[in-house]
């Protein structure tokens, strides 16, 4: 410690303080630590481990294909129903996982929150990021499915990360908001599974968005997951791309969710350790 360097100056005052640059820089390491921890812990004491990430969406795909595709004959455009529904399920499952983990991130780390200081926003950020590997695993089953139906993906495939990013932003925004509120209101634990289920039915996963009456379409498109699912389906399997309104409203709403989420989280953050 002998060499001269500019010493860090920290000011502690009653109002919510903003993160300093130094802290954010240091936070990269911490982000890595949190993400690494949740990966390492996730499949401890399981027999089939990461295979769960494939089994869950595949099982849902089979059930949905039988009931909605085969029996109810839900239209799926030019795509075979299993491919249609799996493209949607894939990104949806990722979104739902990221949303659940992000919403839980503060309360489930209460031992750390009450003992160690760090920019608390790292908790939802790392929870959202840590959900990504499972998405990669579920691509494996999609590849098999597309091989079976002989669907060749086009250049649009390169845009998949873009739609995943939108899903990540929405999951993080909503999750940060719910996660902060969860610190005081444990109702969130009850609300979350229910909300996720409702949201799933308001997203064109088991049915195409074209079934929604024209008059309500704009309302429907306010759900940014419409953009994500339609986009992913287009990028993977070449179904019609999401239209302009879907893209604009979807992107706008994801920015809104992100903004509100961060704002609520940062304003409540100073009270976490006392309230939790």
């Amino acid at each position, binding site marked *: *410690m002998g060499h001269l360097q500019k010493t860090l100056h920290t000011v*502690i005052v009653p109002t919510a303080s903003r993160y300093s640059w130094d802290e954010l820089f240091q936070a990269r390491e911490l982000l890595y630590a949190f993400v690494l921890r949740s990966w390492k812990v996730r499949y401890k004491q399981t027999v089939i481990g990461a295979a769960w990430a494939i089994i869950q969406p595949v099982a849902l795909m089979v059930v949905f294909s039988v009931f909605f595709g085969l029996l109810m004959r839900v239209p799926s455009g030019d795509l075979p129903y299993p491919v249609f529904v799996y493209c949607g399920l894939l990104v949806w499952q990722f979104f739902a996982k990221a949303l659940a983990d992000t919403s839980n991130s503060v309360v489930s780390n209460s031992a750390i929150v009450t*003992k*160690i200081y760090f920019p608390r926003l790292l908790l939802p950020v790392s929870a959202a990021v840590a959900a990504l590997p499972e998405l990669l695993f579920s691509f494996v089953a999609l590849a098999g499915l597309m091989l079976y139906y002989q669907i060749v993906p086009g250049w649009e495939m390169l845009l998949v990360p873009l739609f995943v990013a939108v899903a990540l932003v929405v999951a993080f925004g909503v999750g940060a908001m719910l996660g902060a509120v969860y610190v*005081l209101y444990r109702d969130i634990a009850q609300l979350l599974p229910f909300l996720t289920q409702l949201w799933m039915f308001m997203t064109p996963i088991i049915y195409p968005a074209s079934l929604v009456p024209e008059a309500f379409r704009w309302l429907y498109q306010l759900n940014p997951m419409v953009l994500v699912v339609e986009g992913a389906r287009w990028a993977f399997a070449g179904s019609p791309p999401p239209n302009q309104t879907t893209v604009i409203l979807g992107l706008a709403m994801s920015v809104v969710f992100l903004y509100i989420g961060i704002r609520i989280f940062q304003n409540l953050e100073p*009270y976490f350790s006392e309230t939790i």
Partner: protein
Amino acid sequence: MNSQENALPRDGGTGMPDVAVRVSGVSKIYSLGQQNVQRRFTDVLAGILLPRFLRADRDRRSAEAALDRENWIYALNGIDLKIMRGEVVGIIGPNGAGKSTLLKILTRITPPTAGRIDIHGRVGALLEVGSGFHPELTGRENVLLNGMMIGMTRATVRERMDEIVSFAQVEKFIDTPVKWYSSGMFMRLAFSVAAHLDAEIMLVDEVLAVGDIGFQQKCLQRIRQIASDGRTVLFVSHNMDSIRRFCDWVAVIQDGAVTWSGDVESCIRYYEEVCRDQYDEEGPAEL
């Protein structure tokens, strides 16, 4: 007796007279009752989510409630401290005097209600250890993750891994999940990680000297080492021998305020008197 003047700054012979920590008029008020904790939280939410005309009424009620002094508990009441770089300062005081609250505010775990603190340098804490440990992870994994959580870089932890492990004397078990550790092994490893943090300003609570006599001695030795290599140290302890051994000067905290500060011996005498008085008043009858 309520002498709240700043302690005499002594630079501990380091020749660096700069201020490391300046605490000015810091208070922490807790409002009694669950409702108050909830109100503050919901006020913030309402402030973001509700338009002004809808929350005018609740804002007024909250302001009234906040002014209801009957419910106030002063955990800290106007603390002033000036600690120069390189000084080792002892903080002593009876249980519930506010020592832990002060440390929690200095580590930014909880915000003060009033006042301001200026800290020049990186703060490391040796207060409560092991809270970031995950039972399913091995000792090595926990050292890496916990080290990063308390402020070390990945490279630093890797570099000190062997040192940390051998200090904790858990070499044989370092690749075993910590849920299978004995509580002694767990505490030793947890202490060891925190004790190898290299911050310019260290907050140390001596309660942490854990384990059997042998390891306690090691912990104290480590604390002494931290105290003697020119770092600024805030040392909280109930052990007057350690205070005498490590500290340049002492601040006595009582009922949330610094009631005496300065020379080590005079502070210890004062503190012992305070404690004696306290037990004379209410002591034997209750024991």
